[in-house]
């Protein structure tokens, strides 16, 4: 989606048909800046986008039902019909679109009383092709939803001062949703949901009509299991939410302990010890995992040891006695008997003494198979000794690694207990209260973690059983031609479900890693602090830093101030926009898997007041970083936020600039001007007709 132009007419405080805001088409000068005083209409412009496309407004907009300009209503006569209109022109996928939404009201009283004739629920959408021919869209809402789904709109059109909410712990679902929606994973999730749901049930029912009693039993168990899984998933979600909420409260308490002068030092020490303890626990778990793998792969060696030794000594005994290798082979004797001629040339007729004597050699002759086996066992025995030696050596190594880490963990736990005790003994009621709260929360966390893990394990076990049952159903023997075809369909369906699951997991992991790298790059270019951002495996947006703890450096989460949180959120959006754009380029070249739905796209970023809550250092950093966030940037700023360091940094990239001239009714107000690149423009004017209104002008 590339924005081309926005026209407002009697929309909110904008009186009459306004100068069209034309967005810069240049890739080098991709920033569009709209200046306006507080209350002049910056948030209204952001809402013009939301209203024209989806007929909704953002929480920051006051009186959201009031769409028509007061001045227009004052000037209208009783009975007149007045209209507020927003027209947005944009480009997408080679076509041009003109979206218009209009609200109509009739004036029914002497003041501002109106009746609504059309609440603007119908969107008019014209599609203009490359030759300039226009046609109306038959389903405008759906067309807009395909270009930019409403649920994703907030990621690209937002109130800059509120954007930091993406860094809160509770925002992981939004992050997850953005990644999945924008980068083509939602289609995989939906495919799985539909195929596993009604499609599979419908086939199961069909199969049940044709199937044997045994198969019917499997189907019934499968369905019961599906219901049990759904219940368990609910339990898991509740357990996870409880855990999340407690974790967030605990983090808040720790942060308060860090903020208090009397407890800050000890709390930081506790943070360091906890981080190290977590590392030790992970190392123990890793060692246990590797131990389990080693034992499952080579553990049999300890059980078959006596057998191998016995076989080897039996063969060695035979070798000592000269039974292997034998001089005459059984096969050779059989060949002589079958040919009927001895090696001396005498005939070997059945029943004769000669025949009997040669046949007697069969019992004494050696078998070539036995000799080959003897040689093989000899070679394998040596390899076996080597493998067993390595197995025991790896086992010892891993056991030692585990024990060492258990010792480290124990030492750290003792230090932690000591540090916590020191904090507990602090002569401060406030610290005491926080420590008590922390203790209670930590205790609660432990039981919640156990509860969540139990439910998760149950769920995993049930999923495995479900998977096995599904295969059992598909593999059961067909009793009829109809059953066979339904079974074949189920087989294909299961293959498809497995494929989508594997692909979803593969793509989620790849995309998270690529976005993580992207966000690190964007953040480090913008921020001047030695922190690094991270998208965790559970889609949390965190900021990390390294601290020295003894001789080692440990990583810790950074308590984010508004500035860091805002930059972190902007970096995340920037990395998504950039990844989606790269994906589009690749899919257009046919190098990506566009047939699997990963087509990417181009998205603009429209921000209202992104500099409001930032100090000067961050303003400069954000201003220099903004142009690289997306191909097209639109930002609304006040004089206080946007002039000086912000405009100086943005200047080389500014393609278009507009000013919202605000007409105030305040009697003692002074008119103000704004100076942009050496030219002066009206900024605040005194209203002469007693109404408050605004006007857009190009600067």
């Amino acid at each position, binding site marked *: 989606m590339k924005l081309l132009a926005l026209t407002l007419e009697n929309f909110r405080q904008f009186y009459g048909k306004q100068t069209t805001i034309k967005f810069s088409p240049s890739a080098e000068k991709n920033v569009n800046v709209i200046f306006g005083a507080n209350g002049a209409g910056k948030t209204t412009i952001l809402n013009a986008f939301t209203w024209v496309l989806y007929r909704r407004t953002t929480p920051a907009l006051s009186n959201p039902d009031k769409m028509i300009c007061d001045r227009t209503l004052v000037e209208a006569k009783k009975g007149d019909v007045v209209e507020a209109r927003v027209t947005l022109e944009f480009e997408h996928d080679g076509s041009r679109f003109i979206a218009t939404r209009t609200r109509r009201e009739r004036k029914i009283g002497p003041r501002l009383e109106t009746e609504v004739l059309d609440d603007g629920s119908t969107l008019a959408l014209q599609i203009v092709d490359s030759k300039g021919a226009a046609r109306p869209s038959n389903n405008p809402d759906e067309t807009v939803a395909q270009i930019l789904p409403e649920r994703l709109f907030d990621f690209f059109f937002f109130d800059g001062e509120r954007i930091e909410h993406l860094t809160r712990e509770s925002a992981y679902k939004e992050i997850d949703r953005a990644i999945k929606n924008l980068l083509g994973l939602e289609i995989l999730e939906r495919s799985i949901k539909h195929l596993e749901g009604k499609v599979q049930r419908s086939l199961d029912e069909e199969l049940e009509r044709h199937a044997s009693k045994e198969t019917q039993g499997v189907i019934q168990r499968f369905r019961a299991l599906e219901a049990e899984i759904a219940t368990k998933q609910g339990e898991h979600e509740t357990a996870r939410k409880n855990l999340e909420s407690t974790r967030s409260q605990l983090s808040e308490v720790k942060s308060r302990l860090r903020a208090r002068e009397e407890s800050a030092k000890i709390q930081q020490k506790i943070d360091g010890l906890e981080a190290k303890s977590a590392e030790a626990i992970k190392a123990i778990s890793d060692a246990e995992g590797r131990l389990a793998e080693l034992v499952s792969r080579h553990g049999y060696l300890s059980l078959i040891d006596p057998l191998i030794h016995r076989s080897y000594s039996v063969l060695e005994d035979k070798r000592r006695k000269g039974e292997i290798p034998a001089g005459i082979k059984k096969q050779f004797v059989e060949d002589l008997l079958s040919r009927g001629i001895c090696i001396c040339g005498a005939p070997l007729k059945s029943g004769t003494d000669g025949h009997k004597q040669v046949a007697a050699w069969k019992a004494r002759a050696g078998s070539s198979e036995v000799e080959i086996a003897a040689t093989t066992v000899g070679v394998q025995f040596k390899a076996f000794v080597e493998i067993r030696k390595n197995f025991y050596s790896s086992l010892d190594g891993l056991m030692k690694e585990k024990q060492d880490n258990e010792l480290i963990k124990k030492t750290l736990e003792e230090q932690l207990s000591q540090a916590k005790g020191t904090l507990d003994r602090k002569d401060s009621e406030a610290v005491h209260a926080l420590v008590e709260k922390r203790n209670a929360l930590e205790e609660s966390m432990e039981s919640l973690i156990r509860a969540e893990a139990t439910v998760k394990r149950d769920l995993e076990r049930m999923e495995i059983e479900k998977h096995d049952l599904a295969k059992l159903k598909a593999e059961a023997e067909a009793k009829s031609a109809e059953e066979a075809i339904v079974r074949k369909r189920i087989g294909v369906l299961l293959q498809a479900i497995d494929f989508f699951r*594997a692909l979803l997991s593969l793509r989620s992991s790849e995309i998270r890693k690529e976005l993580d790298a992207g966000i690190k790059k964007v953040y480090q270019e913008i921020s001047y602090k030695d922190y690094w951002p991270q998208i965790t495996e559970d889609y949390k947006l965190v900021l990390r830093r390294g601290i020295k703890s003894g001789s080692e450096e440990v990583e810790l989460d950074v308590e984010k101030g508004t500035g860091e949180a805002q930059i972190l959120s902007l970096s995340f959006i920037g990395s998504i926009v950039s990844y989606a754009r790269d994906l589009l380029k690749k899919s257009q070249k046919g190098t990506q898997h566009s047939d699997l739905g990963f087509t990417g796209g181009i998205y603009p970023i429209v921000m209202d007041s992104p500099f409001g809550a930032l100090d000067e250092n961050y303003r400069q950093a954000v201003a220099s970083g903004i142009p690289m966030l997306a191909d097209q940037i639109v930002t609304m700023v006040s004089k206080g936020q946007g002039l000086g360091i912000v405009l100086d940094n943005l200047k080389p990239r500014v393609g278009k600039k507009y000013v919202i001239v605000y007409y105030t009714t305040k009697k003692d107000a002074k008119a103000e001007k704004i100076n942009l690149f050496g030219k002066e423009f009206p900024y605040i004017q005194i209203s002469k007709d007693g109404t408050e209104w605004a006007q857009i002008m190009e600067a």
Partner: protein
Amino acid sequence: MAPETLENLWAKLTPEAQRFISAVLQVEREKLHMVNPLHVNDDLLKALKKVVK
């Protein structure tokens, strides 16, 4: 073991499963952004029956 790739996953499928997956994606893509998508499951079932007759 070599890391799993899309190509590996695709190669392991039977031709019928490959055809069905393409049809599923086609149906899902068409209905992804619909406000009230209708008959998704019916369309998927039809696609499966068309692939495995």
